């Protein structure tokens, strides 16, 4: 009986723990060094900014706002942390892996080239 009760509690608490208890702090702390140091092959290129803007509007703006200003539930991408605290390599790592516990999906389905184009666009945004 005790075993059954324990198993029941485990089954209830484990998913709850995964969803709510995974306070991993800043995702930036999870980025490995070699990802942090990756360089953007499209850095500051005007065409990449335009292409990145197109991808952003198609894929990201529904959650993060038309101009990355954020929405009620999702953060702005013009913040100090995004613009200066995170390297382009950090953002690439975030797009590849997502932050699934917090609702950010993985965008590994997009080719690397398109991820770098989005990052180029995001880094071109300033308040």
């Amino acid at each position, binding site marked *: 009986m005790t075993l059954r009760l324990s198993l029941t509690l485990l089954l209830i608490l484990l998913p709850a723990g995964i969803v709510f208890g995974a306070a991993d702090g800043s995702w930036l702390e999870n980025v490995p060094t070699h990802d942090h140091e990756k360089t953007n092959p499209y850095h500051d290129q*005007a*065409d*990449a900014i*335009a*292409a*990145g803007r*197109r*991808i952003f509007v*198609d894929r990201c703006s*529904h*959650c993060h706002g*038309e101009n990355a200003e954020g929405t009620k539930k999702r953060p702005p991408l013009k913040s100090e942390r995004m613009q200066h605290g995170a390297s382009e390599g950090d953002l690439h790592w975030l797009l*590849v*892996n*997502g932050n*699934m*516990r917090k*609702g*950010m*999906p*993985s965008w*590994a*389905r997009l*080719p*690397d*080239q*398109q991820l770098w*184009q989005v990052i180029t666009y995001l880094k071109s945004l300033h308040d």
Partner: protein
Amino acid sequence: MKPAVVLCLLVGFLASIGQAQERPYFVTYSHEMEEPGNLEIEFFNAVGKPPAGNRFIGSNIEFEYGATSWWTMEFYLDGQVTQHDSTIFTGYRWENRFRPLLREHWINPVIYIEFENINGGDKALREVVGHDGKQDVSGPNAEVRQEKKREMELKLILGRNYRGWNISENIIAEKNLANQPWEFGYAVGASRPLSLAASAHNCTFCGEKFQAGVEMYGGLGDRYSFGTNQTSHYLGPLINWTAPNGITFSFSPQFGLNDYSIPRLYRFGVSYEIDQLFSRFHRGAR
């Protein structure tokens, strides 16, 4: 005629709402989950003619919803039209996919669990398992629809994205809950966009709008006769194109690889994604 009318109506309806770009697979599942809050509506068809039967078109419409980043659920309605016979509804399916590892790895597993309540007339051919073959799509509808299939299907989906390519493999185990043995099958596919970088300008027929690949799938017998003896297998190229309004059109000619298979299948599909479905109903939503 009826499927064409339904297709036109569906396309017309969907043209007014959202966007999607999916892998071009018809049978293989990739490890990529539906984005949380999005609803994807897909309409898939398989056209074929078994040597000893009438031409058919097996269809299903699917509603795929991203519950969370790691959990996708999907509901299917299946039907078919058989030439010189009839049009019948063949049942429904309900599936859930879970991604246990929350980061992208060298290989990414997804657990797939499905309940099917279909009848023997189902010709959508969304998977091939056990000893499924051309004889299963040859019988008259009035007869085959009498067979009830309440089945549980489990899949282990393994996937990887590498240099623009997606490589996916599915290992399938299915059991008819009416005391039938476990049946097994597989599906593998590889695909990539024709262009890896996006264009700086809006475009209709640029490479990024197309995805191409190849898919192979088939049965692996059952618990008592595991293997490739008396099983059917199919192989075919795949292509899809995403229109500027977001509707994705997919097509694949597929070829039976042995005498047990239907010689040729032509698959086509239309899909559309509605972004952030429920937030559209919230007050102040954009």
